[in-house]
């Protein structure tokens, strides 16, 4: 218990003044904070479309249970995003063929040489990829090959290119969607079966189902590409990766494994450990580039 009557009048007055000043300061602080918060919310809502979507990028590149690393990744220089956009690519050397690592490395090195790519020249970019494939064909005559998935992001637009069965995954609203179509025999069989009005169970049982119908190293290959760009949104997550990731971690598990508020390195870490924890005894090489889109003034 305190008895303020014992204090001198001056001290009591000083205490009252201090108390009043503290109250004023506290009320002012709360008012200014509220005002700033409201202003910022209104501003960002009003200018949401004008604020740029910027990519946050991370990657992992793991050998799995294989003796050698046949995956290769390429990320364009981040300081050039403003002028030439972001290009991220992953190439996976075809298993069972020799020189998988040589071809996948050659593919990503060639992309690096050809950077920057024109964003709106999708057909020309596909021609460059087709040229890389023809060169591999000339050198190896189908004895070696690789898959390729590549995304090109400029502001809030995305173009993608694909050859083979690697993955470009978009996670939006906690739901994962594979954007590219796999170029394998299963697609041909599914088309035939569906046209014949029957179910497609046998298409997946066929031993040739996973065999590729197109890949880097095929002569005059058919590059799958977006003819027009796709619009990206704030918090979209794009995963450009080899099938070693999805073989051990299906799409729904990937979406369930990550949180929307994580940054790209955090997401990369979660997926990497998710694949590792599946303890697949025949774990293929697994590599992926994670791109998280964030709206920002910078």
């Amino acid at each position, binding site marked *: 218990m305190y008895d303020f009557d014992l204090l001198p009048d001056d001290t009591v007055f000083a205490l009252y003044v201090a108390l009043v000043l503290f109250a004023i300061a506290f009320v002012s602080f709360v008012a200014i904070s509220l005002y700033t918060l409201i202003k910022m919310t209104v501003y960002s809502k009003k200018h949401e479309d004008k604020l740029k979507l910027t990519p946050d990028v991370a990657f992992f590149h793991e050998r799995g249970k294989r003796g050698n690393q046949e995956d290769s990744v390429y990320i364009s220089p981040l300081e050039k995003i403003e002028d030439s956009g972001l290009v991220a690519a992953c190439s996976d050397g075809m298993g069972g063929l020799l020189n998988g690592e040589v071809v996948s490395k050659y593919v990503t090195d060639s992309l690096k040489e050809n950077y920057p790519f024109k964003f709106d020249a999708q057909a020309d970019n596909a021609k460059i990829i087709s040229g890389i494939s023809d060169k591999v064909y000339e050198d190896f005559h189908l004895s070696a090959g690789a898959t390729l998935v590549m995304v090109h992001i400029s502001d809030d637009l995305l173009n993608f290119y694909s050859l083979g069965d690697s993955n470009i995954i978009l996670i939006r609203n906690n739901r994962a969607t594979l954007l*590219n*179509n796999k170029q394998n025999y299963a697609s041909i069989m599914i088309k035939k079966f569906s046209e014949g*009005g029957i*179910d497609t169970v046998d*298409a997946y049982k066929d031993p040739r189902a996973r065999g590729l119908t197109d890949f880097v190293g095929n002569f005059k290959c058919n590059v799958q590409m977006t003819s027009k760009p796709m619009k990206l949104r704030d918090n979209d997550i794009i995963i450009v990766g080899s099938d070693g990731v999805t073989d051990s971690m299906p799409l729904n598990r990937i979406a369930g494994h990550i949180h929307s508020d994580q940054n790209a390195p955090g997401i990369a870490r979660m997926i990497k450990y998710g694949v590792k924890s599946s303890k697949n005894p025949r774990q293929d090489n697994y590599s992926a580039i994670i791109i998280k889109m964030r709206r920002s003034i910078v």
Partner: protein
Amino acid sequence: MIEYYTFKHRGDALDFSDEVFLRLVPNLTVALFFGSNLKIAPKSQALLFSEILNSEEGCKSIEYLSSVFDECLDEESEYLILRVLKNGVECYRRGGVFAKIVKDGQIHVLPNGFFGLNVGDSIVCATSNFYKYLTDEGILADALVSGSCSDWMNMLIRRISDQCQLKCGNLSAVTLKLNE
């Protein structure tokens, strides 16, 4: 020029009870009837649906047609009528059949009424059973990648097949692309 492709599949059902109707003149008219969702006499309702459309010869307005359908068909009937006009598309839907439009790199559900179209726009009309296995992002990506309506449809079917091996109910859909 409008390009289109239709897909009808029985799935694992005994019969195909949906109806996909197409008329090319005087305007391209696409109509989808979701019969497989009807409990009573889906076949006869589907037949009645296409007979009404056959008899109007493409000259009646969508509003008039929808009022006829409301009068003649079972009240739980689900259907969509879409008519491509000179500079746009007119759409009327009821229940779990709808059209989605891919425009400027985005996908939207086509609302009832008139909607303007531009070269390069793509539309998919399908029953909710078809959409059940698809995501909007998947439909959008396939529309942007595919060179033709049949390519687009085959990509969508691959996605459905990857999830259910087409062992699902009736699947009915039409893809349309507006080319130069």
